[in-house]
């Protein structure tokens, strides 16, 4: 049976530490653009932790919400691409083929989650940082769109390893960098087609909802709502 990769984000566990963001940068060869460019909206974070404040000072509460590509089933970003650079792959992921991208940036506009990023300039790494680049992930050139891939390089490796040993990928044995790095275990990754997987069971939780669900894009990421501590103690 084909895989259908999905994720659960437990907002109750997220502390907003941004370890996922850092891990993603390291794993996926994401360039840092510097403070000035970041201020102009050129920063690239395939996963970001959105912060929302509630209440008036001093009674302020902060809510964190990690947002990454929702790997939509009916992804609005795909059909608008004139060159099929953005399309659905066989595992239900929104694949982005960098070599095919001509940089119309239409996908970035069509994406309602704003999780697509553009290489406004040629990415650069200050020496010796180029030595820590991940050899499994291609570098993107200026003028190309990029986005979260659910660490497709790890998925590919796990699939070929499993195929060589003629077995399925065991639940929990495969994780994208963000989920692996999350100290609180807020990010759970797995195969939604396997009803016994952790991600499939958590996705069915009554606490679960999808981001901007009414747009009908069928995102594959489920957010688990926060609960008041008194309720969870009860």
């Amino acid at each position, binding site marked *: 049976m084909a895989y259908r990769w999905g994720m659960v984000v437990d907002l109750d566990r997220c502390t907003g530490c941004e370890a996922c963001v850092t891990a993603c940068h390291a794993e996926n060869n994401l360039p840092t653009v510097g403070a000035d460019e970041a201020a102009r909206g050129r920063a690239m974070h395939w996963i970001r932790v959105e912060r929302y404040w509630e209440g008036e000072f001093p009674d302020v509460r902060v809510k964190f919400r990690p947002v990454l590509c929702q790997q939509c*089933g*009916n*992804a*609005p*970003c*795909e*059909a608008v*691409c004139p060159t*099929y650079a*953005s*399309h*659905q792959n066989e595992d239900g992921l929104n694949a982005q083929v960098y070599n095919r991208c001509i940089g119309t940036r239409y996908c970035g506009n069509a994406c309602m989650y704003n999780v697509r990023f553009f290489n406004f300039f040629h990415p650069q790494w200050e020496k010796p940082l180029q030595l820590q680049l991940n050899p499994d992930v291609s570098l993107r050139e200026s003028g190309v769109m990029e986005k979260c891939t659910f660490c497709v390089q790890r998925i590919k490796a796990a699939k070929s390893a499993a195929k060589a040993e003629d077995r399925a990928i065991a639940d929990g044995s495969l994780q994208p960098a963000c989920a692996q790095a999350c100290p609180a275990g807020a990010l759970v990754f797995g195969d939604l087609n396997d009803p016994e997987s952790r991600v499939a069971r958590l996705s069915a939780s009554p606490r679960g909802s999808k981001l901007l669900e009414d747009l009908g894009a*069928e995102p594959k990421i489920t957010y688990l709502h926060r609960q008041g501590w008194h309720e969870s103690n009860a």
Partner: protein
Amino acid sequence: MKAVYALYTDPDAAQQAVEALRGLGVKERDIVVMSSEPFEEYEFSHRDKATWLHWIAGAGGVTGMVAGYLLTFTTQQLWPLTTSGMPIVSTWPNTIIVFEMTMLGAILATAVSLLITASLPSRLSVLYDPAVTLGYILVGVNRPDEPLASRLDEALAGVPGGQVKTVA
């Protein structure tokens, strides 16, 4: 004698000249009229038969439509890639391409057949006189039959205002 023609300033005179030539028994297709504007309200400008241009434009449109259909509906199946949960062969968007190709076919067919049937591009015929674009109306006969030739001069000169010229 290769050709004989007369220049008129007045479209009514040109009309008379055409009729005079007909009176001599010159075949309709041998009578040449050249002018710097269409003169649609004169009979001599309606001697061309009705054209097939509308049908050719239609045929061009159908050709374009078929080309558009083949382009979209077949190439989508050559390497099926799913986007946004849409079917591999997406009729709604393809309709737009088919429409544009239809119109492009019709436009190109019209333009090409317009040029071909109007024999453009071509060399200027021996009959042509630059006075035509100055506003004169040229009425003439190309390669007239010998017995008729001598009488053509008189017929054309018989219409008032005509300046007859012959091309040897």
